């Protein structure tokens, strides 16, 4: 009951904000989150905003009043302002009140910071009998950015996609992020906050979509000329539809060959692609280990080797090719 009320409050406040900010019909995904992670973060956007807005309002009002009341006018020509050095009581008050406000904001900050490390509660139960790996209830997706595209792998299903994601609705998704080349930041504002992806690192990010739909994702960390085009659509659909899609990809899409993979790692922008598994069995065995993208650490050449031997036909301009090491 209390929870509902809280949600209601957050909902109303954010609705007012949205209306105030946008007028009509414009998408403000950060303020209209479609999943529990984004909603959790929205609460931490709205609450400090309200507290700080109250403070700001008081300061603005005081400031305006002082400016009007005490401005130099011909009428107060001979007025000699008093000599005040300070006022201990007042100064204590405006030190203590901000401390209270900071504490009030700090407590939920810490709680949520730790909470976001754990998977959100699923709103739809996973059908473990159709899941190829029943020990794992959640979908794991390996994410790797390369110059200037997103490579996604579904290790539980043995498929890969480029520049688009499909996820089951109401299920926590375990994103494992890494980068091949410069770092990027993986951001789907409608579902929740971003996490950076870096070469040689595996960073985790939990997200979940509670309603079906297509959401826009993009890179939020500049990585060169094609960075602005590093966008992808995330389609959230029911578990059945999701598994239907997996089957289709497995049946109809080509395998990801080593040649094709090398080509994908060259600097370029590409459209969406689907692959029915990686062709080199040593490079990728579909296991649950956090190995990042197939091949990054398992038998495929490391990026610098690819770059120094790669042909420049797919690369574009000054940022391609050349090896520095």
């Amino acid at each position, binding site marked *: 009951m209390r929870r509902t009320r809280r949600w209601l409050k957050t909902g109303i406040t954010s609705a007012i904000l949205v209306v105030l900010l946008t007028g009509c019909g414009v998408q403000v995904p950060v*303020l209209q989150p479609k999943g529990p992670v984004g909603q959790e973060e929205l609460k931490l956007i709205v609450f400090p905003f309200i507290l700080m807005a109250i403070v*700001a309002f008081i300061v603005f009002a005081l400031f305006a009043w002082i400016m009007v009341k005490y401005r130099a006018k011909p009428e107060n020509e001979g007025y000699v302002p008093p000599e005040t*050095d300070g006022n201990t009581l007042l100064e204590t008050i405006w030190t203590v009140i*901000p401390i209270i406000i900071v504490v009030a904001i700090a407590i939920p900050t810490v709680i949520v910071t730790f909470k976001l490390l754990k998977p959100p509660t699923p709103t739809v139960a996973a059908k473990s009998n159709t899941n190829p790996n029943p020990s794992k209830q959640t979908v794991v997706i390996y994410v790797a950015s390369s110059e200037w595209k997103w490579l996604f792998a579904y290790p539980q299903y043995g498929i890969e996609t480029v520049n688009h994601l499909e996820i089951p609705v109401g299920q926590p998704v375990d994103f494992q992020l890494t980068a091949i080349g*410069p770092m990027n930041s993986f951001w789907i*504002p409608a579902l*929740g906050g*971003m996490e950076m992806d870096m070469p040689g690192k595996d*960073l985790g990010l939990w997200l979940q979509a509670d309603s079906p739909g297509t959401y826009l994702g993009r890179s939020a960390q*500049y990585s060169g000329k094609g960075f602005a085009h590093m966008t992808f659509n995330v389609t959230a659909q029911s578990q059945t539809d999701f598994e239907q899609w997996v089957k289709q990809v497995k049946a109809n899409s080509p395998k990801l060959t080593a040649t094709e993979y090398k080509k994908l790692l060259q600097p370029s922008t590409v459209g969406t692609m689907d692959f029915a598994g990686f062709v080199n069995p040593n490079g990728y065995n579909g296991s649950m280990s956090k190995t990042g993208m197939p091949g990054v650490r398992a038998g495929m050449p490391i990026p610098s080797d690819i770059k120094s031997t790669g042909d420049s036909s797919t690369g574009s301009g000054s940022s391609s090719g050349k090896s520095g090491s």
Partner: protein
Amino acid sequence: MSQFMNFANTFLMWKEGPLIWISDVLIGLTSIGIIAVLVYFKAFKWLWKEWLTTVDHKKIGIMYIIAALLMLFRGGVDALLMRTQLAFPNEHFLTAQHYDEIFTTHGTIMILFMAMPLVIGLMNVAVPLMIGARDVAFPYLNAISFWMFFFGAMLLNVSFVFGGSPDGGWTSYPPYVEKMFDPGPGENYYIMALQIAGIGTIATGVNFIVTILKMRAPGMTLMKMPMFVWSILITSALIVFAFPALTVVLAQLLIDRIAGAHFFSTTAGGMPMNFINEFWIWGHPEVYIVILPAFGVFSEVVSTFSSKRLFGYSAMVGSMVAITFLSFGVWVHHFFTMGAGAAVNSFFGISTMAIAIPTGVKIFNWLSTMYKGRIRFTLPMMWTSAFIPSFVLGGGVTGVMLAVAPADYQFHNSYFLVAHFHYTLVGGTVFGMLAGLYYWWPKMFGFQLDERRGRHAFWWFVIGFNVCFLPQFLLGLMGMTRRMYTYPSGLGWWIPNFISTIGGFMMGVGFLLLVYQIVWSVRHMPRGVADDPWDARTLEWSLPSPAPEYNFARTPIIHGRDEWWYIKRGKFEQEFVEPTIQPIHMPKSSGRPFLIGLFMFVAGFGFVFEWYVLVVLGLLAVLVLMAWRSFEFDYYHHIPVSVVEKTEKALGRL
């Protein structure tokens, strides 16, 4: 011929198209124009004797300010090019590469070559005058600092027409800026320009700490110093502790790039995150290096124009010291999303929020100073008034919102962040430095700037500023990230972007009006009436405007805060250390600081293109010049009593 074309295409970038050609022509014409003017007025000797070789803190300060305003123009043009590109979706006014270079130079120039010299320029002009000193502690070193900054700035600007500008963003995160991904010379320009200017800045920090601690007039204890001097003392300490981190991290990156090391590469055990940590260990204190002097200016301005003592002096000092310590403990908030872990993020989130407490104290103390005052809304006071709401919104409200680590996952690198730091840096630093510039202008030049024309500039700039950056908060929440060279239609991003562009151009108009105001005032404002035009409170206003070379004919004895105010009100009596004028010991001018800067430029240029002959020649020349200085014993002179008396008489002081 083909050899020349090859050179032109590789280094002069003639294949890049008309933008570069126009720039080449404009730069050529400007250079010819400057030389022609100098020849026509036979001003070479004057320029060399009076300015290029000067070690006078007032002149060095003025040169800093002129350079900063030029850089503000350059950075502003960059900004307008970007806003033009973003005015409509899918625009192709600039290519991706050009846009990337422009946002990089915009950020780098605005922070390192506009905000910093404006701050350092004002402190050069004001601090010695405010503490009753005749110059800074190390005038020769001060000149070296200036020329290092100046040639560093030139090096970055040369990149535009020779070899290509850096394109890694002003934060320059590896691994993107490693040679593997970013080959050209642009990134080397960034490294060398910042390196040279940064070393000069460290020297400035040392210089002002010593000046303030050792050269105050007798009687001026630390707690009797004007608040601006306090802010500079603290800023200098920040510089001395923060800038070495930048020097080290830039050196590491340079070694990576030109010697194939792996400090920050992705292979051979390199760690890009180290760069980001080191960069922000400098970068966050740097934010306070440019904002604390603005706080100092506001304290002087609010007190002067309210005709009231500064409220809560000790609390103001205490809060600045608190900000200084806290500023070294918050750097991770620049990369909450880099997976440092929940405990780390919690710590840095809370330490960041804690900064709001001393900052809030300062805001309330300024309001209390104004309370029951008699506030004169002159130009310095107007810029201060514009600062308070901007900073409460930018630093206070959105600053605290960004400090909430989970919420920052949604704000990071978005336009929300862009709007936030422009509200603090423009609304805080730029407004503050403009307030200071208007405030001390009469002291620098002996005449005031025209109020009416200044108000036009003020309203255009301040309204334009809000029109430009308020919509960007919304753009961030809509999912637009910084550094996108273009955006698709259909996301609702067009209207806020378009409004923002209009605001940007309004700021441009404001800047032009400011220049017009200065030009008009130079020609028309009356001279010799500006010794104490504001009825101000501190020592510098007891001097003639502009102050003579030696500042104080006799060293004053200080009785308390707001010394000059109480002398004017008859509460203190004006007293001097020397009963009569004595010969004044002053440093000699020297051309070597200029040459050291020039040869650092040569060496830096050599590093950029890995032309090691230039590097060796440049550094050798610098070493020779430094050695020469070591064996110089006749570096000062005495101004005889007769000359001082003559000058003072001419100024109506005897």
